[in-house]
């Protein structure tokens, strides 16, 4: 945990610009990215969390000021983005409380004054938690998810609940029963999913960091589409208590930030064993915050000795050529930093996708049985019990969710278990084994996070297999339960300023520390890119 004594002055020194907090001005028009880039002379992102802490403790700003600025910007951008399903009405009150404590020289937590967005499938006791579904419209949980509780205990302010594909099922937020979130890089494109709202909110600087969930790539793919950092922790690293379950053996809560450092700080706060989650690990949580490095340090080959494996199956036909070249450039950058790069083959890679969908639909068909309108949520009017169930569920659940429940029901039916579910579990074993072998021989593995950059809203809706195919890069990691970090590594054609592409770094179980260190070094030494979407590019210091 960060102590108030820690002041990252070295960060300030290495910023090209005098370090100031983000000011939001009304954009007169959207400049092209190239122009912006020339104006801004991009520099690597710095930790907003540490900056805020520094500013608050040095009294150079107040939490209320900070929160007001963000809220103002949020409200201005929301009509374009629709990242949020609910915005908290106690933000300023909470900020006042923090200011009061600071005034009185009381101890404040490491996230004091930090505005956090929380995906709406994570329970918050003071705000609705709909999971993007009409079945839970206006549902208010009687408890905070453990991850949310921990955030709040550290002084974070939950600014609102972000949009998602219903129950986490989907890759675009088009599956939300309420609204579609737009990608801040191009409002006609999807932000990715299912944690699209959380990714867009951080990308558009509506909040500083956010929580999402990742069952088959739902943090990593939107991170890639929105040009932000997304971290999927090891299964068991973060408690699932309070996460509305989609697929219990695959779900994790993950983090979004505009820098690897912020993502690490957030992970630090929410990690740890929870007695309410029997699958949460008792392993000690290392400190995921670390010394920052200088962008110039590339000369010193800070990653010398790191063995990096690039996954062959992720760079084949079916992946955008521009994406492939971004990843290869990123790989070269890693080599420049001293890594040794080899190509790695994971033979069971392609089987992972159908295996994932068998397991996910099966488990979700079971996890969603509880949405029957009897004890909470929307209830249909009915005289007969089966109609009550049938109609409540018919009205409350969206098409994609219904279909997945039906598929899962099929796969678990008597006589089919061996053919589908059990076989999928065996494939899971294969996938775990192949990753283990690959990670014995390599420190980290890399791949794209998605086969393309963000596509247009409406493009993929009709064909389920087309939608599912996009998850090929991410699902195997969920099957294996491994941690993965996605950070922006390049831009491809599209939109007014290009579209971001993220590189996925995969580590061994519980080795988030290594991923964050490598990611941070990569990020800080990457030249020529500033991953701030044009929507917010004005008046920004990177």
């Amino acid at each position, binding site marked *: 945990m960060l102590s108030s004594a820690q002041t990252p002055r070295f960060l300030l020194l290495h910023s090209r610009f005098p370090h100031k907090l983000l000011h939001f001005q009304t954009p007169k028009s959207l400049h092209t990215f190239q122009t912006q880039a020339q104006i801004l002379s991009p520099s690597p992102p710095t930790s907003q969390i540490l900056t805020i802490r520094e500013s608050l403790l040095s009294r150079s700003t107040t939490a209320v000021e900070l929160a007001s600025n963000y809220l103002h910007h949020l409200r201005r951008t929301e009509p374009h983005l629709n990242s949020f399903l609910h915005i908290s009405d106690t933000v300023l009150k909470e900020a006042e409380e923090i200011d009061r404590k600071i005034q009185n020289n009381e101890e404040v937590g490491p996230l004091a004054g930090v505005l956090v967005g929380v995906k709406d499938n994570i329970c918050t006791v003071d705000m609705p938690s709909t999971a993007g579904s009409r079945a839970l419209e206006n549902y208010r949980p009687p408890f905070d998810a453990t991850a949310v509780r921990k955030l709040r205990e550290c002084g974070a302010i939950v600014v609102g609940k972000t949009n998602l594909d219903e129950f986490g099922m989907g890759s675009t937020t088009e599956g939300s029963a309420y609204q579609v979130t737009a990608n801040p890089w191009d409002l006609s494109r999807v932000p990715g999913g299912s944690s699209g709202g959380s990714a867009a909110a951080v990308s558009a600087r509506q909040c500083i960091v956010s929580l999402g969930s990742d069952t088959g790539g739902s943090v990593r793919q939107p991170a890639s589409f929105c040009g932000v950092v997304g971290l999927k922790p090891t299964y068991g690293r973060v408690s699932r208590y309070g*996460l*509305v379950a989609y697929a219990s053996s695959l779900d994790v809560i993950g983090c979004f930030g505009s820098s690897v450092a912020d993502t690490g700080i957030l992970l630090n706060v929410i990690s740890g064993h929870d*007695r309410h*989650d*029997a*699958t949460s690990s008792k392993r000690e949580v290392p400190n995921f915050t670390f010394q920052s490095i200088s962008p110039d340090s590339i000369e010193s080959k800070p990653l010398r000795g790191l063995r990096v494996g690039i996954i062959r199956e992720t760079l084949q036909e079916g992946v955008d050529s521009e994406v492939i070249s971004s990843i290869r450039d990123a790989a070269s950058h890693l080599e420049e930093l001293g890594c040794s790069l080899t190509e790695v083959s994971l033979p069971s890679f392609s089987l992972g996708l159908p295996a994932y969908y068998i397991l996910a639909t099966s488990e979700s068909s*079971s996890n969603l049985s*509880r949405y029957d309108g009897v004890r909470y949520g929307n209830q249909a009017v009915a005289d007969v019990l089966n109609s009550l169930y049938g109609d409540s569920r018919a009205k409350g659940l969206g098409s994609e969710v219904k279909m997945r429940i039906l598929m899962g029901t099929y796969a678990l039916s008597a006589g089919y278990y061996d053919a589908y579910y059990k076989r999928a579990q065996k494939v899971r074993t294969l996938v775990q084994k192949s990753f283990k072998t690959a990670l014995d021989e390599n420190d980290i593995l890399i791949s794209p996070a998605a086969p393309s950059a963000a596509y247009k809203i409406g493009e993929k809706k009709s064909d389920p297999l087309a939608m599912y195919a996009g998850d090929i890069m991410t699902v195997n990691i969920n099957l294996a339960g491994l941690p993965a970090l996605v950070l922006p590594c390049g831009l491809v054609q599209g939109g007014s300023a290009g579209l971001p592409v993220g590189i996925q770094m995969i580590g061994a179980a519980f080795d988030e520390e290594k991923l964050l260190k490598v990611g941070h070094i990569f990020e800080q030494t990457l030249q020529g890119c500033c991953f701030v979407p044009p929507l917010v590019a004005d008046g920004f210091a990177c």
Partner: protein
Amino acid sequence: MALTFFRGIQTHPFFIYPSAFVARKYGVLYCTMSSTQTQSATKENQQQPQSRISTQTQSKTSLDKVFKDYEAIIGIETHVQLSTLTKAFCGCPYSYGSQPNTTVCPTCMGLPGALPVLNSKVIEHAVRVGLALNCKLSFNSKFDRKQYFYPDLPKGYQISQFDVPIASGGYLDVDLPVEFGGGHRRFGITRVHMEEDAGKLLHTGNGSYSQVDLNRAGVPLLEIVSEPDMRTGIEAAEYAAELQRLVRYLGVSNGNMQEGSLRCDVNVSVRPIGQLEFGTKVEIKNLNSFSSVNRAIDFEISRQVLLHNQGQSNQIVQETRLWEEGAQKTVPMRKKEGLSDYRYFPEPDLPEVTLSNKYVDGIRRSLPELPEMKRRRYETMGLSIQDVLFLANDMNVADFFDATIGNGADVKLAANWIMGDVAAYMKNEKLLITEIKLSPEELGELIASIKGGTISGKIGKEILFELMAKGGTVEGLIKEKDLVQIVDPLEIEKMVDKVLAENPKQLEQYRGGKTKLQGFFAGQVMKESKGKANPVLLNKILSEKLNVKS
């Protein structure tokens, strides 16, 4: 139910038609079967003397012949509600009779985002029961989800164990009651597994709606499945009674059928003797007492045998029937559902349950002496089987008995006192043996005092009553009430003389031939002695005096 009547100090007699039950033998029941409308009427008319117990010697009606050609195959599925302080997967406390929907939390209510965490005590109890049932334990078992929709099942699935139960392949030794032929049976146990209970569903009388109380949702259960080894209703009922005894001995459950902490469903099929194939199995539910278990099975056996005999065995379908206590018959459940597909799959929210040898050995060492062992031990002490069954039925009674004889008291006498006066007192006062004020030590003392001649048996009974009601010591009471038996012949002689002198009329009558009056004189002497005269001595001296004076 006679079983519980004779044994039951702790158990409550559930039976409704005691005399009919005791009288029931195959022959009687089947006669009533042939006229189902007048079933209850004929039952009352066919009381038979209690003494005949044997199932072999009965009147050879043609029906009896028919039934002899068939054998029944019976299996029982028992659910035992564990007496843990909290539920299986959450920390909610559970107590029977709480205000509805007050002992609930997000986990047992199936709220979004809630997760189960296993109560370690549940594993401990499961292992205890598994060991007590002589099972093989599964050192690595897991939980599975059993999926179906019902209002008392909040998550839409029950967390249970499907293909890897925690214990399997055991047996239970049972002694059949003496009044039903006695004998020893060993019934196989197929499996024991852990699962959670559902809530309660109540149906309003008039109404268009039902009511759900989720207090009980998530309470831990052990499901115990027997091999289909029973052949008669009695065997099945006794198996169930023994399970109840066992779980009470082990302290894992209070085993109360009325509270629902012990529930039995039975499976019955019949086949012609000699046939290898099993007949169609019928499940019977709604059995709320051991006597219902017995009667329902007997009824169902008859129903099926009769159908077979009439060439209509195809009318026996695999179904679930309900036992109707009022009508004393099984009826089909209203809706015939196809075989349910529970879509089992391993519970992803719970890790595997792993046992270590050390853990299991620890539990094995802590097991109390089980009913079967106790019965065998009591038998070797020379007690009759009737005494054995009585004493071993309730662990507290057995402990009391063991404590009493542990102080050196005579085994047979201790048994008699406990089964006689003590039991009667408890029944009258509606007390448990742990609640009476008599201590085992004092009972032992009482027995010794009588045996040693300090007090008479009659005085002993009086002291006993006082000890049970108010406590105290034998010695103390003897002193306090001056109860020491008079064994001095001279003193007795004095009293005899006095009585005879005071009753000249009766004396003359006696002399005249009414020898029965000796009892009268004896009574008077006893009264004179305030009950302290040694009866044997009294009668001896009295006889002498009476006969001398003639």
